[in-house]
């Protein structure tokens, strides 16, 4: 049970504010914003998603730079409220097509309409876009998606790859297409976030895949859908310990540690033929989340070398190799590495003739940054950085062992469209046919993203 719900902009302005129970004073948004902004005097630490001020608990989630906040005075389930906030954001996005400060401001009457049906007197009523459709009468005012920074995991499909219909992800579930006709289509995205930690000697310390099969349906009449996964898929690692990585490698089978499903999913034949049956509700939702610690081939190999290079100078050589096929290209690749705090200057040397790469030395936090717009499979890139250290530095301190102690680890972020490391696949997507001519567009897309990709040095 919650007391109030509000959405704040990054500057702390109220965009919508709904008081359901009148138990919490009106100034709560201001109290909340001040607390979040100045959580610790030094500004170093982020405020946790839930905190209590004078008996009022504040919950918040950050979505596209906006703060979705709920308040309450009772001891509720935090998961329930945080899940709800996330869900409200998703419902609004389903309706508006694009979730942004601009679209919210333009559609605040519609948003109030939604909020009235989602929550009544602080109790959740429904967050199903499907159910809400019959209660909502305002038409969304669609904002121009092209001008907006695309956000969320699905947004990656909008950049670069021409194969994707760019407007789909930002299409409202209720608004009609300009031609008055709705395009029949369904999107299934397999999004995998991977975490890998390499030791200083280059072997894998930990690795994990957190995957989700996300669906967004624009099919009229909600036909039933069958989604077939790998037949050799198995779930649960039985008695084995979770960090025994070797056991299954090379056998070809995909072994998930665990997974969970959206409530619309029926698992009647899952045990037999690994098929999920569901009647997809309108809007975007995760069909299945899964987690995997089975060994996989990391998409990038990182090699970092630090050497002394004369008086108060050192050289960093950073090599990255893409271990995926050459018909696949990673984009928005960024490498970061903290340098010793005595570093005063860094000059960079890229390979001759490369384009689309940028380097930077952030003097304030002593960080090396290397951006690569594109990274083609099978290719290796190298960066050389010459560091100059402060004169104040004690001669005795200066040796490569100490430099290494003060530098690193190298962290990397990237997005690889049309590639997934787990080998989990959607073998087919079957839509129960209404007529022989009914053949909606089906988009099955894969993407791999770095969650925490770290190489120690």
């Amino acid at each position, binding site marked *: 049970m919650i007391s109030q719900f509000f959405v704040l902009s990054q500057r702390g302005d109220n965009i919508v*504010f709904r008081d359901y129970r009148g138990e919490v004073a009106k100034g709560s*948004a201001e109290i909340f914003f001040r607390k979040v902004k100045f959580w610790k005097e030094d500004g170093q630490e982020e405020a946790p998603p839930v905190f209590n001020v004078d008996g009022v608990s504040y919950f918040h989630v950050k979505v596209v730079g906006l703060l979705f906040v709920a308040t309450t*005075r009772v001891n509720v*389930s935090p998961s329930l409220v945080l899940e709800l906030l996330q869900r409200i954001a998703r419902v609004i996005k389903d309706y508006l097509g694009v979730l942004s400060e601009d679209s919210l401001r333009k559609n605040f009457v519609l948003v109030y309409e939604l909020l009235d049906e989602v929550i009544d007197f602080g109790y959740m009523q429904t967050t199903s876009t499907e159910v809400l459709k019959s209660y909502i009468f305002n038409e969304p005012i669609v904002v121009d998606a092209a001008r907006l920074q695309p956000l969320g995991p699905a947004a990656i499909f909008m950049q670069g790859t021409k194969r994707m219909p760019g407007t789909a992800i930002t299409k409202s579930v209720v608004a009609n297409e300009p031609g008055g006709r709705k395009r029949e289509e369904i999107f299934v995205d397999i999004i995998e976030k991977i975490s890998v930690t390499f030791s200083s000697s280059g072997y894998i310390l930990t690795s994990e895949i957190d995957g989700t099969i996300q669906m967004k349906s624009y099919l009229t009449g909600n036909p039933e859908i069958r989604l077939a996964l790998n037949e050799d898929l198995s779930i649960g690692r039985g008695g084995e310990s979770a960090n025994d990585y070797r056991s299954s490698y090379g056998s070809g089978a995909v072994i998930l540690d*665990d997974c*969970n499903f959206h409530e619309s999913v029926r698992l009647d034949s899952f045990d037999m033929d690994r098929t999920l049956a569901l009647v997809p509700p309108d809007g975007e939702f995760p069909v299945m989340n899964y987690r995997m610690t089975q060994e996989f081939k990391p998409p990038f190999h990182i090699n970092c070398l630090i050497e002394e290079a004369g008086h108060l100078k050192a050289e960093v050589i950073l090599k990255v190799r893409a271990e995926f096929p050459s018909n696949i290209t990673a984009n928005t690749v960024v490498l970061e590495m903290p340098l010793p705090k005595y570093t005063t200057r860094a000059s960079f040397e890229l390979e001759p003739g490369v384009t689309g790469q940028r380097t930077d030395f952030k003097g304030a936090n002593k960080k090396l940054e290397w951006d690569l717009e594109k990274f083609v499979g099978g290719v290796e890139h190298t960066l050389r950085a010459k560091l100059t250290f402060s004169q104040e530095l004690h001669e005795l301190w200066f040796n490569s062992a100490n430099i290494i102690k003060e530098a690193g680890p190298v962290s990397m972020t990237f997005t690889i469209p049309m590639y997934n490391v787990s080998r989990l696949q959607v073998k087919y997507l079957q839509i129960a046919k209404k007529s022989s001519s009914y053949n909606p567009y089906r988009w099955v897309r894969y993407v791999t993203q770095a969650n*925490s990709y770290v190489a120690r040095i």
Partner: protein
Amino acid sequence: MAPPAQSQRSPSPSQPSGKSEVSDLKLQLRQLAGSRAPGVDDSKRELFKKVISYMTIGIDVSSLFGEMVMCSATSDIVLKKMCYLYVGNYAKVNPDLALLTINFLQRDCRDEDPMIRGLALRSLCSLRVANLVEYLVGPLGSGLKDSNSYVRMVAVMGVLKLYHISASTCIDADFPSILKHLMLHDSDTQVVANCLSALQEIWSAEASTSEEASREREALISKPVIYYLLNRIKEFSEWAQCLVLELVTKYVPSDSSEIFDIMNLLEDRLQHANGAVVLATIRVFLQLTLSMTDVHQQVYERIKAPLLTLVSSGSPEQSYAVLSHLHLLVMRAPYVFSSDYKHFYCQYNEPSYVKRLKLEMLTAVANESNTYEIVTELCEYAANVDIPIARESIRAVGKIALQQYDVNAIVDRLLQFLEMEKDYVTAEALVLVKDLLRKYPQWSHDCIAVVGNISSKNVQEPKAKAALIWMLGEYSQDMQDAPYVLESLVENWDEEHSAEVRLHLLTAVMKCFFKRPPETQSALGAALAAGIADFHQDVHDRALFYYRILRYNVSVAERVVNPPKQAVSVFADTQSSEIKDRIFDEFNSLSVLYQKPSYMFTDKEHRVPLEFADELGNLSIGEAANNVVPTQMVEENDKDLLLTTSEKEETKGSRNNGSAYTVPYDGSSTSVFASQAQIESAVSNPTLAGHSPQASFAIDDLLGLGIPATPAVPSPPQLKLNTKAALDPSTFQQKWRQLPVALSQEISVNPQGVAALTAPQALLRHMQSHSIHCIASGGQSPNFKFFFFAQKFEESSNYLVECVINTSSAKAQVKIKADDQNTSQDFSTLFESAFSKFGTS
């Protein structure tokens, strides 16, 4: 709903200054009100939107009330909704104007479109104007009977709203019993769910004054209702499922086959993608199996994978909420998770609050087989750019060292920290080495060699400096230049800003003096002189005390200040196990995130309904809950009432020390905050010095805590009670509900007893000396209420007692419940005899 005026930067059409725009709108609305021209609704929509947008950015548009109401005569639902929004916002501040709306809202409640009926009813109930409640009863009554489920759903919430505006109107109209009927018979699950929410709130609020309401509240968790809801659980929305699951948590099944039935039924809820459903299910599983140790264990194993999946899917915020619960379980049963330690490794981009939880989990799961890897990982974090986390990582290494038997490798690592030459790393490591030496004095040789190389000039943080000085004093015989280092520190006395460090310095110089008198004498003289002249009261007092005791007798002084010490075996925990149990009872709530039981952060009137544990909680904090008191005080009060004496020593120690991580110093002499009294008592009876139990008795007496002087009266032979009986509050509450009253009687309280009840804790201690333990207590003179329990010696048969004492009538009402009914009479005799001795011994 109106957002405060700060959102001025809203890109609304034109920035209106206020008045002229509003009167402009008024005119336009008035023109449209009577018009029947085609397209009039579209113009109205535009105007309404403008009004709402003014309202959102904080311009007062209440003067348009009349015109808005006039324009609401329309069949356009979008217009109606905007009008309702407007009315809902201004009705409360303009109750007179609100009366204007009643008419059209009531008419809409009878509209043929169920959508309009529902909306109108919701708006009608949301006016929150007390003198309009009479207009609500009729529409609500027909709303509850409406053929459309949307209207019924809204009407049910409307009843709850009415209850909050005027409880008596709601009860008089007999709405709760209509809701009860709907809850059990309506075909729409959301109507059922809303009935459940409303009834829980209403009956919990009524229960304090009405016997019947409290019976109805109990009936919600009766078998038929629970089974009815459980059998339909998959028809409910995910949010309503959480509601039902929460209710099931409070249900007490009659036998184990029922428990397994429920668990089998709910098994697949653990695979739900909604974390809230999974956590609610886990809570049911944990609660149901509390008394079945091995099944409880299996539950831990079963829920591990779903929890880990939830942690890694979803937004960072959701995963934090789940991780906090995982943290709680790891702390309770670390061995279950010891092979999953890699899941608790920190990722570089995680926020500090997540890393901190993970560090604690890593510390907890460390055992013989994984310590090496965990410590290696933690050492990586020690070099982290995030300094607070680097510090915590070093502390974690130290904690693991303190909980392990084989500390060999860890000591080496800690010593390496000292050589890292980062000031904060050195500081943390020094504090750890000090603690380590207090537990494993055998390592002193290796450690001292390294510590001796640290220049005190490089150590600035008071805690670290104090630790270094403590080691200099304690091991001055092994450190060549200890007296000279101390001497130079004394010379810089005036520059030392921390009183803690100066106190330590005094004690260290004393200790050094006893071991190496010729080298230290001059430093000691200087230290005492500086100490006596110190402006800080504690420093001054300690210096003066040292001075006097040295003059009195040097060998006594040595026995007091530097007695032989025993290694510390276990450092006190910062949180009592009672508090932890209570947090566990409140699984899947904010208590887990705040790591505090709910009574510490919620007001009394906002406690979750239907929680027996809350009643116990209220009782135990007694009057503190009635008045507004700072949390800290509530906490202390609570501990006073609930803790046994020995635990109180621990908490006192840790509280004195301030930080959760620095463990209290043991023994008498080294204590920074050693009480004057303690030392004095040691002086008067030198043989006692250093024997902390005795010494702390002395403190207790001085603080007036009144340790019972009499030994336990031997129990009658026919019934022996377990002196160390243990029972957690949730089991108590479960049993209290399950068991019938075996005996109920009135005992008179003797006058001494009445007098002694001015401090109710005294009774708890008294009863405890008779092996009857208190689990909760509270009340204010003249009425006190206590819940006791006792266990049969060498059997797990429990006795539960509720004892209500009225000091003005000197009578106690005693209710006894027992697992073994046959012996309840014996127990009653025992209880009565113990009780009657209260105050006389």
